[in-house]
């Protein structure tokens, strides 16, 4: 009897370690069994089967990693994941393009007065909302006013709109008058235009985009259909189902079983395990990933120490070890997707050179290196992986680094807002499509200058950049600011992370943007 008991214990232990290995937050074991994966015939029953191109319905299922905000009203959306997919349903007067430009959308054309104070938009002829109502000047004005600061509490106010002095419309022309010129004003007019007086926006949103909302089952899926009266080039697919898969372990399963045809933001390890049924499209996450250094805290208040770290870190090796070679190297607070603002000559300003690093450390008074702590938000595995490689690389020059994983909330409060840290590995993104969104934070007085960067030259360049009228001159100043960050080794710049999208073979047309959106209008079957 006792032996049997012991055997049962042993079995239980085996089971426990298996269960422990699968308890990342859901019943993965079950999923694995109910959806058998057969490597030889990947996804034969999937709607996206390339062999039966003529028979399959013109629709796909897209996996997303989190449920959308409770309200689908775009003016109330908070989560990046919500804005990412609802990009397909809503449009503003202007709309971003994959190249980082802005094109008129709800507006057909616009004019800016010579003093750069008056903007007049002509509403596109015959454009209508998903419910069939035409878009009027009243709708446009109402939508813009709704987002101005000081409105309803749950609306995400757009600060820049407070510059609007007067707003009016006549027939199909909307005129906005500003109190002072702002070369970046157009980028804020990508805010969604909604029908005035429609009160179902929270649960059944209506916009003007290439896809219209059909239904939503909370925590399970959102169904979109092609909007046939779209003003522009219509979407290729008739129907897209957004399937919410929160458990990271189930992502692979659902892709391989054929339940999901497209999934964005995968890790290189996940991609490696996918097999032949998928094409991997590589875009960028549009983040400046760096080991941010507290420029006000010893020993990083010495520029030589910061430069030494830049030389000590082998960034290509980070990509190879932690990201399977994916990602694009950067040398300043700007990523390549920003096109004209990106200065590639800064990328290799600090080539990997351990000897130089040691010499600089010795010069700065640390011939035997020092100890430091790298704070990392623990919910971002890519940053933890990066930090692990950095720890190893710093050993070579005698610097002992220790990783301190913290929760996202504590990172925000203590590291970002409280500025209590030595070094931290994170990615910083741009909220709007302007260089200013990335560079303004390092001016000495900026409230979000969490690294305490202080360079008088940088501050004066920023003033010149924002006050210069011409786009070309402005771009030149922004580039000088980037060079200043690099030369002073403000941070150990690493990379813009790769955004890996798995697309079932037989599908194509995923477009990448310099902002965080998933454009489904171009996705189509090749056959």
């Amino acid at each position, binding site marked *: 009897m006792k032996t049997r008991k*012991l055997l049962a214990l042993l079995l239980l232990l085996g089971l426990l370690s298996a269960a422990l*290995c699968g308890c*990342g937050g859901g019943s993965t074991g079950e999923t694995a069994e109910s959806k058998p994966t057969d490597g030889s015939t990947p996804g034969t029953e999937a709607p996206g089967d390339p062999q039966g191109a003529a028979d399959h319905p013109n629709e796909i299922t897209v996996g997303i990693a989190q449920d959308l905000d409770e309200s689908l009203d775009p003016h109330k959306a908070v989560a990046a994941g919500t804005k990412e997919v609802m990009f397909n349903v809503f449009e503003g007067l202007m709309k971003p393009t994959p190249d980082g430009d802005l094109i008129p959308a709800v507006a057909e054309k616009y004019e800016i007065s010579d003093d750069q104070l008056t903007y007049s938009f002509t509403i596109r002829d015959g454009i209508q909302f998903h419910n069939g109502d035409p878009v009027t000047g009243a709708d446009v004005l109402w939508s813009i006013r709704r987002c101005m600061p000081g409105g309803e509490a749950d609306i995400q106010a757009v600060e820049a709109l407070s510059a609007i002095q007067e707003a009016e419309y006549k027939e199909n022309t909307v005129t906005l008058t500003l109190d002072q010129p702002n070369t970046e004003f157009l980028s804020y007019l990508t805010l969604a235009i909604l029908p005035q007086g429609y009160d179902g926006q929270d649960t059944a949103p209506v916009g003007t985009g290439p896809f219209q909302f059909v239904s939503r089952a909370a925590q399970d899926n959102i169904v979109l259909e092609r909007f046939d009266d779209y003003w522009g080039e219509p979407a290729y697919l008739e129907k897209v189902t957004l399937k919410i898969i929160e458990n990271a372990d189930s992502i692979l399963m659902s892709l391989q079983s054929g339940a999901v045809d497209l999934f964005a933001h995968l890790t290189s390890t996940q991609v490696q395990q996918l097999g032949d049924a998928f094409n991997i499209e590589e875009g960028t996450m549009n983040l400046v990933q760096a080991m941010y250094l507290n420029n006000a805290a010893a020993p990083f208040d010495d520029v030589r120490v910061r430069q030494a770290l830049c030389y000590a870190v082998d960034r290509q090796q980070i990509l190879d070890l932690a990201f*399977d070679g994916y990602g694009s190297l950067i040398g300043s607070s700007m990523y390549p997707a920003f096109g004209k603002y990106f200065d590639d000559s800064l990328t290799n300003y600090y080539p990997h050179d351990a000897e130089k690093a040691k010499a600089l450390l010795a010069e700065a008074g640390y011939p035997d290196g020092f100890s430091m702590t790298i704070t990392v938000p623990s919910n971002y595995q890519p940053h933890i992986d990066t930090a692990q490689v950095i720890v190893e690389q710093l050993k070579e020059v005698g610097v002992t680094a220790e990783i301190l994983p913290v929760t996202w909330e504590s990172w925000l409060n203590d590291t970002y807002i409280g500025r209590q840290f030595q070094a931290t590995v994170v990615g910083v993104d741009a909220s709007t499509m302007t260089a200013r969104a990335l560079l303004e934070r390092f001016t000495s007085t900026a409230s979000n200058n969490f690294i305490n960067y202080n360079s008088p030259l940088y501050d004066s360049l920023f003033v010149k950049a924002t006050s210069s009228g011409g786009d070309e001159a402005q771009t030149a100043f922004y580039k000088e600011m980037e060079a200043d960050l690099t030369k002073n080794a403000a941070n150990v710049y690493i990379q813009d992370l790769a955004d890996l999208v798995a697309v079932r073979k037989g599908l194509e047309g995923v477009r990448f943007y310099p902002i965080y959106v998933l454009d489904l209008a171009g996705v189509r079957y090749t056959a």
Partner: protein
Amino acid sequence: MRRRNGFLAAGLVLTCVLAALILLGFFWTPYDPNAMAAGAKFDGPSLAHWMGTDSFGRDIFSRVLKGAGATASIALATLAIGAACGCLAGALTGYFGGPADEVLMRLNDALTAFPSILLALVVISILGPGKKGNVILALGLVFIPSFARVTRTAFASLRDVNYIKSARLMGASKARILAVHLLPNTLPVLLPALTIGFNNAVLAEASMSFLGIGVTPPDASLGYMLSEAQGMLFAAPWYAGGTGLAIVLMVFSVGLLGEGLRRRDKGVL
């Protein structure tokens, strides 16, 4: 002559072998457990790498040795705190009884009512994550109630037996009665409790590190490695396999030892 106690013998041998390996891991591992190699990512088990390599090209066997060391030392320290505090509280309340007994045991019940991992999570969130000492403290606290209960029952049941009464009549001090007369006689109950406690502590540390609040990277611990392994189950099944095996072996060997001790003391073979 007594019959051979197979459980005890097997448990002793296995535990000693594992303990020797863990001790070895503190001083020597085949590779530097944190050294990365871009050319050796996801290598399967081979003669050079007995358990293969992980996503950074680190040798998994070396990491399992180091990780088992971290896990075992945390488990032992946890056990020391839990057993010391629990036994003291259990012995005093069990022997003396009275209102203090009632209050302490109800407090004990309240602690037990929390799922242990949840309680440890709360303690960690108060003390702050990322420090080995805090993990030990949190887990130690969680382990106090079970030891207190076991010890209390043992002491309470022996309190009024004749040889204790005699000792009391002979004028032995309370401390002497507790330490010399009672404690040795509760060992048959305490020893299995200790081995079971060790196993629970190993699993608890593994769960904590698995959830990302135990040992911090790049240092290895079995639980943290297992959580890393889960994301690579298809690319490197040997990672989860080797790490899981180490946990199972550790718990199994001490489990055998505990079972052997229990049988010896009960005379069951």
